[in-house]
């Protein structure tokens, strides 16, 4: 049975999110809750946002999401039960890496001097394929000493052997500054 009326005062997405994430003052939260119980349309809108979260979790667990995340997020992934293979590298480092069948995610901690950096770009060179991708203005904390790159695990599983060079570049009005280069030699998982 679908809703067949339009709410006269629909709650804004930002307020629905604020309610869901526990950001609203208690009194406003109670008002929003009353409205949600009386209003099928706003409740359905909140349901869509919650379903979006479910889909994000499924996407990450299925290896279909890639991105750059702060180190704090890795702890949350592991706390949620994801099996995470981690590599840690210093600038100018090089490492052999793989993804095992039982890994949900593989990620790389790239250590770098981030203090004072306002904008950070990540440049990924796929060496054999001669392709370059630039991730502009990634999320990071300047107070942290690392960024964490999460590739799509699903894509990694399909690679037999390949190398990537990753560069972290600080961008400012004065120009660009290379913070570090990190080389990954990926090969298909071999037991033992």
């Amino acid at each position, binding site marked *: 049975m679908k809703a067949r009326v339009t709410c006269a005062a629909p709650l804004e*997405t930002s307020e629905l999110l604020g309610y869901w994430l526990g950001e609203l003052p208690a009194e406003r939260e109670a008002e929003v809750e009353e409205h949600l119980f009386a209003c099928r*349309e706003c409740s359905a809108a909140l*349901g869509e946002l919650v379903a979006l979260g479910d889909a994000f979790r499924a996407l990450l667990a299925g290896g279909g999401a890639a991105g750059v995340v702060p180190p704090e*997020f890795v702890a949350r992934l592991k706390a949620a039960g994801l099996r995470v293979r981690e590599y840690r590298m210093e600038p100018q480092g090089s490492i052999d890496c793989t993804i095992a069948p039982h890994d949900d995610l593989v990620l790389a901690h790239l250590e770098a001097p981030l203090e004072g950096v306002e904008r950070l770009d990540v440049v990924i060179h796929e060496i054999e394929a001669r392709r370059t991708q630039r991730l502009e203005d990634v999320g990071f904390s300047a107070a942290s000493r690392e960024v964490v790159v999460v590739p799509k695990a699903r894509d990694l599983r399909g690679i037999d052997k390949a190398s990537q060079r990753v560069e972290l570049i600080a961008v400012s009005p004065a120009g660009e500054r290379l913070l570090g280069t990190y080389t990954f030699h990926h090969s298909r998982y071999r037991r033992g």
Partner: protein
Amino acid sequence: MATEAVDNAYDDATLARRIIAAGPARDAAAEARLYASLAPRVRLYGRKHLRDAQRADDLVQDVLLMTFDRLSRGEIREPERIASFVLGACRQTVIDLKRGEARRARLLDTYGADLVAEGDDDAGPPDTQRLEHCLETLSHRERTVVLMTFYDDSPAEAVAQALGLAPGNVRVIRHRAVERLRRCIGGAEP
């Protein structure tokens, strides 16, 4: 605020009146429809306050079975305020959640099989392939913020702290990203 959706409340109220009128003879069709209408709201309440999908499903059954029981006994005198009654029951049930397993089992025996078979109006999650595409249309910073927000329902303060941003800035990025994702998932944007 509760009066803004009066027609929806009327639908629920009409069904509640039918259940009251049927009494012990039960109006199974009205019960199934009211369950389908209210279950998504109760489930969302449960997921917010219990942060556990299974326990939220348990809450749906606890609250709605109790509601139908009280309706059929004629113990709810204002069926037009059924949504408000259910919200109050949700609040109390979350407090009492760890009690009442025996009562739940008894009510499930009476009403459960019919209602579970009917299902409810809850929407499923969006297609993950579409979400994967839509996620890639966001800027990298937006992507990080929404992943962190939605992965485990992190408030803006926590995301802001991890990214060295102001909470207000995170809310702006989050809002913009969510609106774009919703349009993309809905097909309004490529």
